C-alpha cells in the first residue's frame, strides 16, 4: 500500500521540487523581488487572483479564444482527413500543404494576424488556428494511412456497406490518432494563443502577464505562468487521459 501511494505522489519528484523551491528562496533573497520574487510572494499572488476572481476572467478569455481557434482547426483537420481518405491525389496535396504549414513560424502568423485583423481577439484566434491545424491534421492523415487494408478487405468479403465499413473499421482506426493530435494541439494552442495575446487585447493570460511586467509586478508574471501550467496539466489528466483510456479499453 505504501509503495502505491509513493508512486502516485511521485515522491522522488516531490523531493526534487523541495530542493528547487529551497534554491529559489535563496536566490530570491539574493537578487530581490523585481528579478526573482520569492515563492511566498507568488503563492500570495495566486491566492489574491483566485479570491478576486481575476483568475477566471483572464483564463476564461484565453480558453474562449482557444476554443474558437483550436476548435476550428480540429474541424478543418477532420475535413482534410476525410478528403485524404477519399482520394489519393488529395492526400498528396494535403501532405504537402501540411509540410509547408508545419515549417511556418508562430511569429509569421502573429504579425500577419495583427495586420489582417488589427488589435482584436481574432489575432490570437487566427494564430492558434494556423499553428494547431497542421499538428492535428498530420496526425489524422497518418491515421487515415494506417487503416488496415486487410480489415477493409474483410469488410468486402462480408459485403458490408460503405457506411458500415466507415463506422466499424475506418472511424475506430482513426480516432486514437485524432485524440493524440488534439492532445498535442491543445498544449500548443495554449502556448501560442497566450503569446499572441501580448498584442492588442485587454484580457487573457498573455495580456495580463505582459501587463504585470510593465507595472513591475514580477511576482504576477510567475503567478500567471503557474496558472497556465495548472490549466495545461488539468486538461491533460482530466480530459485527454480519460478519453484515451476509454477509447483503448480493448487493448
Amino acid at each position: 500500500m505504501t509503495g502505491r501511494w509513493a508512486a502516485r505522489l511521485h515522491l522522488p519528484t516531490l523531493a526534487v521540487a523541495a530542493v528547487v523551491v529551497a534554491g529559489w528562496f535563496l536566490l530570491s533573497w539574493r537578487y530581490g523581488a523585481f528579478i526573482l520574487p520569492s515563492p511566498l510572494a507568488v503563492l500570495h499572488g495566486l491566492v489574491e487572483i483566485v479570491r478576486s476572481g481575476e483568475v477566471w476572467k483572464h483564463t476564461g478569455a484565453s480558453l474562449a479564444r482557444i476554443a474558437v481557434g483550436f476548435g476550428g482547426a480540429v474541424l478543418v483537420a477532420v475535413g482534410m482527413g476525410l478528403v485524404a481518405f477519399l482520394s489519393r491525389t488529395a492526400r498528396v496535396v494535403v501532405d504537402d500543404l501540411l509540410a509547408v504549414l508545419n515549417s511556418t513560424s508562430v511569429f509569421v502568423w502573429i504579425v500577419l494576424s495583427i495586420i489582417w485583423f488589427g488589435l482584436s481577439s481574432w489575432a490570437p484566434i487566427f494564430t492558434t488556428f494556423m499553428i494547431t491545424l497542421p499538428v492535428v491534421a498530420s496526425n489524422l492523415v497518418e491515421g487515415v494511412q494506417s487503416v488496415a487494408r486487410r480489415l477493409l478487405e474483410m469488410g468486402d468479403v462480408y459485403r458490408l456497406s460503405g457506411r458500415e465499413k466507415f463506422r466499424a473499421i475506418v472511424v475506430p482506426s482513426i480516432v486514437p490518432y485524432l485524440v493524440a493530435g488534439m492532445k498535442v494541439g491543445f498544449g500548443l494552442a495554449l502556448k501560442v494563443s497566450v503569446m499572441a495575446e501580448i498584442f492588442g487585447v485587454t484580457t487573457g493570460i498573455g495580456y495580463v502577464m505582459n501587463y504585470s511586467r510593465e507595472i513591475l509586478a514580477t511576482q504576477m508574471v510567475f503567478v500567471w505562468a503557474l496558472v497556465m501550467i495548472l490549466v495545461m496539466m488539468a486538461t491533460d489528466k482530466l480530459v485527454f487521459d480519460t478519453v484515451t483510456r476509454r477509447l483503448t479499453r480493448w487493448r
Partner: protein
Amino acid sequence: MAVALEVSGVGKDFLIPVIDSVSFAVEAGDFVCLLGPNGCGKTTLLRIVGGLEAPSRGAVTLGGEPVVGTGRHTRKVGVVFQEDRLLPWRTLRENVELVQKPLGADAATRRRTADRYLRLAGLGGFEDYYPAHVSGGMRQRTAIARALAIEPDLLLMDEPFGALDAQNRRIMQNEVRRIWRETGRTILFVTHAIEEAVAIGTTLIMLSARPARIRTLVRNDGRVERAKLIDDLNTMIMEEVERQQSGGAPGS
C-alpha cells in the same frame, strides 16, 4: 445451403503467369483441401474463387451462378484468412454480429446466431472478450465462427492454422472437421501440410509448381490407405518444390 463449386480453366497472370489453367468440380458438402508447394498460387486461386480477385482466364461458378471479380453474386461466401482479421475494438460477439448485418437479420437474431456459432467454436463464455484478451487459437476460432454465422454456401479457408503451434493445430483440425460434419458446408481449405489435408479433407487437390496446374486430384474416401496416400503426396510435393526452385514446370 451448401452448393456445388465449379472452377473451369481458371488462370491468373501477374507479371508472369502464376496459375496456368485449373479446372475442377466440387460437390455440395465436400471438404476440399488444396495442396501445393509454397508460392504456387494456392492463395491466389482461393481469392479468385472467393471473388476477391478477378481471374485472367476462365470462370468460377457457385451453384451454377458465376462469381465475378467484385464478389457481387448472391451466393454467400465465408472466408477465413491466414490471420484472424477481427476488429480489435469489437468484442468477439460484436465481430460475429457485424457480418450478419448485410443479411438483414434484426439485432436479436444476430446476437442469437453469433452466440450459437461462438459456442459451436468452443468460445461459450468468451463472447464479451476483446480479441486482444484471448489467445491466437481462440481468435482464429472466432474468425471461423464469423464465417459460419452468415451460413455460407461456400466456406473458404486459407491456411487458417498457419500461425498456431502443433498442439493447437491438431485441436483446431478436429474442431473444423466436427463443425463441417455438423453444418454440412462446402469447404475449400488451402494448406501446405499434407498430414493435415489427409486428416480432414474428403477431396485432395495437389497443384503443380508455378504456373499452377492440377497435379493430382484424389478422393480421400478410405479406398487408398492413409499412410500410402501421405507418402505419395509427399513424393509429389517434393518433386514440385524442386521443379519450382529450378524455375518452372517442364513444357511451359
